């Protein structure tokens, strides 16, 4: 068996060039691999943060803003409070401002409403006024205290008829006392 003739220079050159090309590509792939960030920590962090904030959606914000707007629409002003007292509180009632309520985000004023010298005949008036207070927007009736004089005869005479309510106001503090 005779050996085949040696390769032609052009064949060797082609092989060398192909080998160089292959090596170059291989080296480039090895040295500069495509950078694909599979686990992007920043992205994971942002996704987590977004998931945590998901409850605070625009719809939730709009819903609560609507509630807040509704509340603000029910807040009292000096004028509306005075008008309400004039219209709803009978003349026999004493209205006394007890000062600002202990609130951080709202302006609330506590008022005491007393009906002196009342008897059981005044109960419809008392009930009507209590009803007005409970129906009035932006008002929280904190306490109602009723007591009669001791004894059978005294039971028709109220020794105490005191209603305390908080009125939520828009803006600054209300007047110290309003009659």
């Amino acid at each position, binding site marked *: 068996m*005779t050996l085949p003739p040696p390769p032609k220079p052009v*064949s060797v050159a082609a*092989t060398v060039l192909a080998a160089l*090309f*292959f090596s170059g590509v291989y080296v480039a792939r090895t040295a500069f691999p495509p950078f*694909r960030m599979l686990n992007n920590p920043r992205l994971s962090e942002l996704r987590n943060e977004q998931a945590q904030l998901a409850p*605070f959606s625009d719809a939730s914000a709009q819903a609560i*803003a609507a509630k807040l707007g509704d509340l603000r629409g029910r807040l009292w002003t000096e004028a509306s409070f005075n008008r309400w007292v004039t219209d709803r509180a009978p003349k026999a009632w004493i209205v006394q401002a007890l000062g600002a309520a202990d609130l951080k*985000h709202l302006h609330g004023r506590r008022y005491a409403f007393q009906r002196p010298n009342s008897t059981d005949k005044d109960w419809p008036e008392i009930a009507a006024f209590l009803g007005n207070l409970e129906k009035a927007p932006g008002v929280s009736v*904190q306490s109602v205290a009723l007591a009669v004089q001791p004894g059978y005869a005294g039971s028709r005479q109220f020794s105490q008829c005191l209603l305390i309510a908080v009125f939520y106001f828009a803006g600054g503090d209300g007047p110290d006392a309003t009659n």
Partner: protein
Amino acid sequence: MPSLCPVLWWDNTVLARIGGQTTAAKLPADGNDVAGFCGFVRGLKPMPKAIRVFYHSTALEHFVTPCPKGSRRTIQRALCHRAPALGDPSAAWAAHSIRAGGSGTTTLLYVEPKARVARLRAALAEDGVFLDAVFPILVLVEETAPPEDRGKPRIVLLSSDEAAAVYWITPAGDRHAVFFDGTTARERIVQELIDGFSIFKTAPVFTVINAGSSPFDLGQIARENFAQKPSHILSAAELLDAADGLSTREIYNFLPPASLVTFDHLCHVAALGLFFAGALMAGTYLSAIRSARANLTEQKAEERTLEGDIARLSANQASIGSAQAVLTEATVAPPVKLRFLETLNRARPVQISIQSATLGESTWTLSGHIHEGTGLEKGPLQGFLAALQNGEGWTVGADRPAPTAKDPDFTLSGTIP
């Protein structure tokens, strides 16, 4: 492949068939025979690009030998014990196609220990002539048999100006070959022919091939009481015209077939493989880079979107928090106080009077007096409690007096959820 020019090289006699013409020459007996042969080829008109040589020389040993069928490698292994030169890379050898004869499978083996064919090929290559193959002359002689005579017993007398050969194939298929030269050649040829014909019971096909400038004188054979007449008489041109039927890959070629795969082929395959592998890698690499860049761009875009969402949601969180704080503070106590008092009035039996009632934001307290029915199991207090408990929006506490309480004064309390 260029058209092949058949050339007969028998000792110093050379004959070429080119362009339909036969050119003959005699190489110098004492010179460089390879150089002389190359000079003869260069002198051919037109000069051939490729030649096929039919060769015999006095340096060529030949003998009939049993031989297994198989490849060149198989035959070399089988015969190297009888002809050690077959293991010598510098030697050249060839063998006729294996025939099944009376003594088994045999061949006619040629061995040239100091081979000229390699030098001949190199020298011709320098002249730009491709040496296609080198065959023994008698292989070509076998090829000249007409197809209808291929299996028949045959005797061939082949002669040139300076040598001759007698070759036969017995009815059993065995080969026999003798080459002659020198001053007594003619007598020995005649004797060989007589001996040859004597072994055939029926007359074989007798062929005479004249490769010399003058035909062999068969009249002399006749004078020697040899009556056999040749059935075929061929010229050198007719002999060489049969050259195309031989295959270079058979074992009768002195030039072992070169590997089908050359270094050039290997280089080309390697270059193509490397190039395509490199191109494939480059393609996938560039694709991966593009994909990675697109992925990064996508991630950046998602980051920006998420940052925007987070900023918006954070703003929502702040506004919701502040609004919630306001709404939480603006809690309005349940409007049940009037309803509680009205229920109290309706539920109170006449035997009970209420002395005080205090309702806070989440609790209530009641005190009173039982005028009649104190201590009864189903007294007025029990009915009062049952009626008070029916109201919605408050509960009656567990510290109420026992149903059979004998103390006429009582205190009740509960919660306003």
